[in-house]
């Protein structure tokens, strides 16, 4: 995990938070988009980023009240936000019924074997995280996996290593 940790410390968290707020706004209703943006930039939301969001958004003069515990409660609630470091590439596997019945279980097995990870784990070199996701709504091309922003449909266990090889 050292690799990821070093990377985070190199990043300018106040700048990243500022950019996210400039893009999505500084009201309470912008908090989820802002946190999602930070999560995308850093791979997760470290404690420093939570403190920084509070510093930049909390403003009684605009009647916007935010505290760190509230922010933490959000980050821990939503599936797509993470409090722990994630790999450079996040592999999301659709675990819903329509994908399950068209061979999803075998694809999941292949992912676990290939990455040597279980659900929710991140590889020691900080490259991969493996998680499940809720239905992506493209059930007609199941089984579906999502790697970062790329969607792969009709995945077979055989194709898994080929697809993973595209990422470095």
């Amino acid at each position, binding site marked *: 995990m050292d690799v990821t940790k070093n990377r985070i410390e190199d990043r300018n968290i106040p700048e990243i938070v500022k950019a996210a707020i400039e893009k999505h706004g500084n009201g309470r209703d912008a908090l*989820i988009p802002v946190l999602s943006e930070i999560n995308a930039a850093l791979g997760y939301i470290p404690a420093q980023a939570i403190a920084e969001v509070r510093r930049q958004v909390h403003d009684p003069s605009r009647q916007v009240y935010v505290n760190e515990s509230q922010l933490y409660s959000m980050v821990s609630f*939503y599936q797509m936000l993470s409090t722990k470091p994630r790999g450079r590439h996040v592999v999301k596997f659709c675990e819903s019924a329509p994908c399950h019945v068209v061979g999803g279980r075998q694809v999941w097995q292949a992912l676990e074997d290939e990455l040597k990870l279980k659900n929710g784990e991140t590889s020691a070199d900080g490259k991969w995280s493996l998680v499940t996701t*809720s*239905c992506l*709504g493209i059930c*007609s091309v199941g089984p579906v996996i999502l790697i970062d922003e790329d969607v*792969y449909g009709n995945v077979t266990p055989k194709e898994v290593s080929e697809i993973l090889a595209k990422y470095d």
Partner: protein
Amino acid sequence: MAFFRSHVLVCVDPECLAKGAHAMLDALQDELVSQGLIDEIQVLETSRIGSCADGPEMMVYPEGIHYVGVTEDDIPYLVEEHFLKGRVVPKFQKSIVAVVDEELGPAKPKEVRVVLRNCGQIDPENIEDYIAEDGYAALAKVLGDMQPEQVIDEVTRSGLRGRGGAGFSTGKKWQFCRNSAGTPKYIICNADEGDPGAFMNRRVLEGDPHSVLEGMIIAGYAIGANWGYVYCRAEYPLAVRTLNLAIRQARDLGLLGENIMGTNYSFDIEVRQGAGAFVCGEETALIASIEGKRGEPRPRPPFPAVQGVWGKPTNNNNVETYANIPQIILKGADWFASMGTEKSKGTKTFAIGGDVNHTGLIEVPLGITLREVIYDVAGGIKDNKPFKAVQIGGPMGGCLPEKYLDEKIDYESLNAAGAMMGSGGMIIMDDETCMVDIARFFMDFTQDESCGKCTPCRVGTRRILEMLQRICDGEGEPGDIEKLEELCQQVQQNSLCGLGQGAPNPVVSTLKQFRSEYEAHIYEKRCPAKVCRKLIHYSILEGPCTGCTVCARNCPVNAISGERRHLHVIDPDICIRCGICKQVCNFNAVAVS
């Protein structure tokens, strides 16, 4: 205006993108530029040319040639053959008559397309396409000729009920919100379509986003709101993109923003994305999420019509509800009310899944029977197997057996039968489905998605799941059924929101309709459908087995032994009961007991 001798329509639906349409599109543009054809041939991005099942698809006009399975590597060849030499490339050609869109496609027998009428027919990224199909004409009529009360009256008379599942009268809901004291008021469109396997709203948002926006603006005018939110789940990035584009185009034409169509009415819309939480489909949780909080429900009353976003009166409807509004205004309440039953008017979209011949998206008039949907619209059960049950209403719905097949699909009949309309997921199951396993599958989902705020749901769903797991594993005990029934009742009656109150439904309905299967699991340690792995074992029959070794070679755990041309044997201690040997055997020699 530039003249193009040929137009290429490339499908950019998520299914095709998942198969590399983006790289193909880039390659096509590059190739046309390098061949000097870019001024003669126009490339357009479109939606839903075919089923998307065979990978990147395109349609070439004026010839009307439909190509499928074209990858970026095929582009140089295709461009040279088709666009330089004028020869059709049969390798990629899909027969024109046989265009089958498995998800939507042409209307099937007994389908009536109201909400889906434009999906696949117009370019969702071009507002002019929508306007050409009478788009925003309803808005013009409302702003020009109708008072807000008249709009509410028209919607009430149409009999439209909430398409998110609960089925409350839309007109009445609007009236409550209009009558509520407090300003400003807000409009919310619930696009947090979380039911697994249900993607009706995604198709409307991606295929006809303006119909939803127009419905929201009309609702805003009727209620007296000037601001609207579309809350869309983050799992639908393309829908979010299409919506944002549609909002920009509507603003450019003065259909959103200050003084819409030159009147003194102003209304604007913003898209808010979730971050992955099923419970945010519940309206009070959704509102909390918009306000930048944990998406946890709160007790009602006060209802959102009185206290919603930022504590102000808020009207929340589903995507499909709003998409119905423009046509109700244009064609009249009587037209809408002519479809459906006495209390359930209009049409409803359903996402059909499971063991039927035609899975995908349909829209049918309410009042149609389950039998008509399954056998006429969806083409009957695959391989002519017997029908066993239909699961309707999503993870909070119920399973209905054959005796309900002639029930009408309307809000009251489904509730009376122990299922619900829900948002429109329908999973059809044949006789190889174990109902205890299905109940376990749905409980697994709701248990995982319980937000944890109230104890009956947080703890109750977990205990129900544990009991079901034990029963599926052959460790059920006498008395379990009664305990399950009591626990389900507790969770239904004491949970805070619809998710918890509905969570036990799959168990309750299967216990009621398929009790004997639970009894077989518990008392006889037997799974009648031969699904629950710990209760079945595989063996190879001496007669049909030819000793071809296919099963042994495919077994993932090497549990099968035997010489070529001699009977093979499965070692039950090693066997993980995955069923692969049964699938690969060409001689039906693998038996399950």
